[in-house]
């Protein structure tokens, strides 16, 4: 038993947390470039190099694995599976499928339209749309790498709950009528039925996964550099007292501030993780940090503008409102029970 634990800890530290990389970077900085390892600039630069390299390595591996899995769950297939369920179970399946269905923000509207046209309840579609950007394999493993497994698993769990509850509330309010008319009319369904049956070979799945790696890295590397950059500045230069004044545990509005700051921001979860890491190191509560991350990923101005094209203001407000409240509640819960995740 003890041996297994040692092996697991070693794997976790070296493969997931990449402790070897940290020492490599530190050695490189102090011995090759001659940085003073006690200085603030050393802290920042080391944080920056270590995080950029670590996130890019993890991301490449993880996107490949998750894209390969995702190649089995096309939106067309998801739609068929969802059609078989009703009520809250449909919301739960919707939220779960949201975690594995390939999805980039520019596809959210066609998926929304495709689901609605096929007659899926609007609430189920929203469960899917909320969980899709919020929870996926890559972000979970990165959370485990930066924080720990308990936080990663708790994150998945509350992400899914927000998606299920959000979708169920929208169902309960019977908001179908707030969808734009052209989305509801059923033209085009006959075309979609002849594109669903295509089955990929294994070679095509591997190619698809490699394509995804290239595409996603190309799309998110800027956010990662910016995110790690901000994280590095926070890490090395922003005084702890200043941060804890605004986002610290003593400020009872911290979660709300973090959520409202995060909503208009458009970034990938991978760009927000290093900021989250730096904030936690400065003593910000885990709930506050998670609320910030969830707000950035689940809601953003571009996605709200896109959704506005297919749903009416009342439904849009309800959607944004429910998700915001959900995130704030989750934030305070995590802060309150933070000792469980230390």
């Amino acid at each position, binding site marked *: 038993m003890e041996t297994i634990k040692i092996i697991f800890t070693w794997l976790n530290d070296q493969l997931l947390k990449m402790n070897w990389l940290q020492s490599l970077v530190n050695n490189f900085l102090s011995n090759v470039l001659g940085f003073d390892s006690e200085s603030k600039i050393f802290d920042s630069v080391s944080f920056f190099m270590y995080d950029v390299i670590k996130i890019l390595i993890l991301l490449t591996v993880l996107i490949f694995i998750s894209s390969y899995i995702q190649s089995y769950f*096309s939106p067309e297939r998801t739609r068929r599976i969802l059609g078989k369920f009703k009520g809250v179970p449909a919301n739960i399946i919707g939220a779960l499928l949201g975690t594995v269905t390939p999805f980039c923000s520019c596809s959210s*509207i*066609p998926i929304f*339209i495709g*689901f609605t046209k096929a007659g899926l309840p609007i609430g189920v579609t929203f469960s899917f749309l909320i969980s899709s950007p919020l929870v996926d394999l890559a972000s979970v493993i990165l959370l485990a790498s930066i924080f720990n497994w308990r936080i990663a698993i708790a994150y998945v769990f509350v992400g899914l709950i927000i998606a299920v509850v959000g979708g169920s509330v929208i169902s309960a309010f019977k908001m179908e009528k707030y969808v734009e008319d*052209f*989305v509801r009319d059923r033209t085009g369904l006959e075309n979609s039925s002849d594109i669903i049956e295509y089955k990929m070979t294994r070679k095509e799945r591997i190619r*698809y996964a490699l394509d995804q790696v290239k595409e996603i890295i190309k799309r998110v590397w800027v956010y990662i550099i910016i995110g790690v950059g901000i994280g590095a500045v926070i890490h090395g230069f922003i005084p702890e007292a200043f941060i804890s004044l605004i986002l610290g545990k003593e400020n009872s509005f911290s979660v709300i501030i973090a959520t409202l700051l995060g909503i208009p921001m458009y970034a990938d979860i991978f760009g927000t993780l290093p900021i989250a890491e730096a904030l936690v190191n400065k003593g910000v509560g885990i709930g506050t940090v998670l609320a910030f991350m969830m707000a950035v990923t689940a809601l953003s101005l571009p996605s709200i503008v896109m959704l506005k094209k297919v749903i009416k203001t009342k439904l849009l407000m309800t959607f944004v409102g429910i998700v915001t409240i959900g995130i704030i509640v989750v934030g305070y819960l995590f802060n309150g029970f933070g000792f469980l995740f230390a």
Partner: protein
Amino acid sequence: MEIKVLGSGCANCKRLYQFTLQAVSDLAIDAEVLYVTDMHAIADSGLMRTPGLIIDGKIVSYGRVSTVDEIKNLINKANI
């Protein structure tokens, strides 16, 4: 022949449109290539993943940017 590239205006959609133009000029065929960003048209096509490539009303590729060679093959297949 009428070829349509459907997309919401994202980078991938534009790339597919460029590739399609390239494929058509390489094949030197008489085809009209349209770039469609209208939400209503996308909704009515039945596509769930953009960008989509539609040749003479039939969806031939969706959800990914096909290469120029692949597009040529798709055009040739549709031509038979």
